[in-house]
């Protein structure tokens, strides 16, 4: 199941559930690859492959600590995704703001009818 475009940007990189899992784990702090293998229960070559994709789009940084390579999260490339979703979120917020007004009126009507209601 080859996906050619995975390394083009953060959108594609986080489309893969395993890679989102890796980011979740790294959000708690930097980890060596063996930790990721253990937590995710995946084979190491697969984890390394995902880490390579995440590094290429800048979502993961790596540094050497002694003989280990430590991987850490860099959330910055996620901002365009956040902004993208935010606009959609705003249009729902406006819709729900109006629903709030309708609900307030329904509550008043219900209080007026108290005694008849259940």
């Amino acid at each position, binding site marked *: 199941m080859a996906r050619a475009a995975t390394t083009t940007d953060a959108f594609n990189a986080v489309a893969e559930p395993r890679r989102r899992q890796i980011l979740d784990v790294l959000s708690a702090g930097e980890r060596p690859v063996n930790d990721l293998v253990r937590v995710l229960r995946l084979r190491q070559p697969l984890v390394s492959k995902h880490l390579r994709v995440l590094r290429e789009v800048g979502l993961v940084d790596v540094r050497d600590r002694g003989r280990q390579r430590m991987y850490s999260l860099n959330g910055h490339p996620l901002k365009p995704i956040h902004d993208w979703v935010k606009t959609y979120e705003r249009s729902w917020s406006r819709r*729900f703001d109006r629903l709030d007004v309708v*609900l307030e009126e329904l509550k008043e009507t219900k209080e007026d009818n108290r005694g008849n209601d259940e």
Partner: protein
Amino acid sequence: MAMTSSRTAVVTLPTDRQIQITREFAAPRQLVYKAYTTPELIKRWWSGDRGEVTSAEVDLRVGGRWRYVMTANGGFEVAFHGEYREVVPNERLVTTEVYEGAPEGEAVVTHIFAEKDGRTTLTILMELPDRESRDAVINSGMEGGMQESMDHLEQVAISLR
């Protein structure tokens, strides 16, 4: 005792094909459900500030159809329709949803109305056939946002005349 409410909609993308929208309301769930399923009430909120709902048809039973039409601020018509798949009054609604401008991307939408201490959390999970359709839905929000900004700009321009 009024608690601070989370009055903003929270949108997340649980998987490639899904969009989840969560919002809390300061009202019991039978009222939220009523506002969600009664045509005269739907007309008052569904368009947000993106236009006016000109028609809301609701045949609230499994297999029944719904259709909402909105005239957007730009003057064009936007219509959605679908079918009710599950109807559990005040608790759960599962519908299909088709944007008539892009009928190939039918969504299955699950609404869950959960009440706690007189407040209702509404969770809407939209499942699209593929990632492209999912992204198109998010982009539609972006276009709507753009449209609103353009409208604002227009109003400012008019006021300057």
